[in-house]
């Protein structure tokens, strides 16, 4: 087990290293003077200077690459082109904002999706179930940004139940600390993007759980549980659903990665100041250090999430051997 974790950590480092190398050359293989791509004259002079020194843009490519790697490892992302603030400073709260929206929403989507999907698979064949399959397939097929816009139109503009975006009411909090994240105002703002993201994400685990239940229900051990005279609910949850969870659980790493990467879209619709929005803003302003840092962090979160989900999977399925 320990060996497995060590090897996985090693693989994660290689993956990250490869990704960052690809990014480095992607930006620098472009036609034109790299210094000009990276440093625009619109920048603050102080930032311009700092950039040159930090990225070593006057030095050979290989040396630039080494400096680049060193900066990433030390989480030193330099300065934003657009404000004289350091990128690390900009990123700090953004990570939290993304995670606070995406993680609870994914957890709820998987829990609720598994339970609903299990019930649909168990009591299969009814008209209600057919309708549910249709509804969730359509939900899964809808672009999440469009669902978000519909939700804003309905719940914010027409009904006035929720604010249409942003983290908190502007000007309400001076310090973005723990108290802000626990405030009613924050939760009020969180509600709509949370609901939209959850109802979009729920379709996948739900439909997968349902079809997984359909094949598990025919397994001998489910029939055997019935022969043992176990109560129906126990057969449903402890045997059929428990085992049907396995193929659903294998998808968590992949879907978590997609959700983190896809946060770009939901954050844009709800003006949610997370990593995704930061990255989009950075791309629009050609704020290269910000884009690179945001991309790097999304990649780190994705890879870490995959790793944690893989470890959890081993707890669910005792047959998994870590070799």
């Amino acid at each position, binding site marked *: 087990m320990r060996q497995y974790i060590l090897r996985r950590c090693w693989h994660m480092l290689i993956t990250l290293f490869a990704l960052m190398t690809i990014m480095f050359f992607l930006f620098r293989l472009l036609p034109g003077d790299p210094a000009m791509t990276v440093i625009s004259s619109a920048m603050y002079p102080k930032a311009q200077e700092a950039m040159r020194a930090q990225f070593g843009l006057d030095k050979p490519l290989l040396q630039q690459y080494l400096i680049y790697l060193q900066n990433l490892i030390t989480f030193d992302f330099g300065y934003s082109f657009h404000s004289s603030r350091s990128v690390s400073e900009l990123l700090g709260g953004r990570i939290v904002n993304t995670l606070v929206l995406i993680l609870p929403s994914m957890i709820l989507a998987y829990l609720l999706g598994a339970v609903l999907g299990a019930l649909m698979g168990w009591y299969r064949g009814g008209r209600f179930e057919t309708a549910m399959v249709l509804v969730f397939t359509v939900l899964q097929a809808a672009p999440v940004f469009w669902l978000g816009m519909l939700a804003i139109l309905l719940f914010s503009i027409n009904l006035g139940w929720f604010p249409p975006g942003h983290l908190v009411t502007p000007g309400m909090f001076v310090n973005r600390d723990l108290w802000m994240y626990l405030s009613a105002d924050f939760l009020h703002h969180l509600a709509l993007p949370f609901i939209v993201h959850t109802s979009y994400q729920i379709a996948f685990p739900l439909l997968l759980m349902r079809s997984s239940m359909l094949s598990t229900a025919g*397994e*001998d*051990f489910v*029939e*055997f*549980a*019935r*022969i*043992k*005279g*176990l*109560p129906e609910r*126990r057969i449903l949850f*402890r*045997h059929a659903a*428990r*085992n049907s969870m*396995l193929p659903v659980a294998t998808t968590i790493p992949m879907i978590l990665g997609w959700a983190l990467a896809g946060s770009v879209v939901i954050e844009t619709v709800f003006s949610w100041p997370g990593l995704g929005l930061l990255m989009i803003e950075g791309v629009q302003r050609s704020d290269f250090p910000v884009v690179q840092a945001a991309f790097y962090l999304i990649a780190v979160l994705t890879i870490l999430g995959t790793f944690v989900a893989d470890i959890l999977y081993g707890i*669910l*399925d*005792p*047959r998994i051997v870590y070799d």
Partner: protein
Amino acid sequence: MTDPAPLSPLVEIAGLSVRFRTKRGPGDVLDAASLVIPAGTSVGLVGESGCGKSTLMKAVMGVLADNAEITAGQILHNGTDLLRADAETLRRKRWAEISMITQSALNSLNPVHTVGDQIVEAIRAHRPVSVAEAREMAAQMLALVGVEPRRARDYPHQFSGGMRQRAIIAMALVLQPGLVLADEPTTSLDMIVQDQIFRKIRSLQAELGFSMLLVTHDLAVVIENCSRMAVMYAGRIVEEGLVADVVNAPFHPYTLGLKNSLPRIDRTSEPIAIPGAPPDPVDMPQGCRFAPRCPFALPVCRSQPPVLETVGEGHRSACHRNAEIPGLRPRAARFATWHDTATTDITEDIQ
């Protein structure tokens, strides 16, 4: 294992008919099957795979597939008709009064729970005991079937095939039910382990005194383990009686054929297989269902279904030619009778 003559029946299956809805039409899987299991005995039910013996067992357990429909009959257990009992009564009876040793322990055990937990949950579904008490009961039972109790914490995939089968037996006996159904309990195991398992079952039966319905395709297993037996072919019981009577003096040609397929140590001849295949449940023959494969079939056999007739004390057989069978037995032991195109000649010969 002697058979004290008149015993009160523990289970009485009467006229049980089950039909399966399939894409190709209704399949006639059980047709008026009747079987009595007297208290304290072992009854063997023999037949080829697909003959309906597993369906009969599932009907007793009340776990027939969704597309199966019971069209007639009753299953009396201690006087209660299981087919008309409500779901909760049935659930309580399962395992506590009727338990089952399944064919494949690997598939019956849930891979994600420990063996011990799966025994404990069976106990606690029927007895108001604490988890600790249930664990203790499970440990004792595992020891009794020859599995180290500490292995209860292991998962099924960590057990060998024989151990898994023992664990299932422990599970089946832990509540001391009056009846144990055993569905080909050793097919997935090698010969030596098979023998150990049956030895264990017999000694436990002597100790605990449960009745057993042993379903198998292997006549030898029945001879070794049961006092009474029934032979099933294509959804019908075709012969039944004491094992000694049925095996030594079989009446139904199918039983004769089954006996031929046993490896014979005393004789030099090779086992003879019954030619052909069992009929398609969706398209059953009109008269006797064995007629298409029977070397002794007459025209009447193809039009009229035979009924079970008494051919000896407690021995019944469903064949139109019951009376002639004793004379036909030597012929039935010959290879040519079953595998020559001369089949028709024999029929004409007798006419």
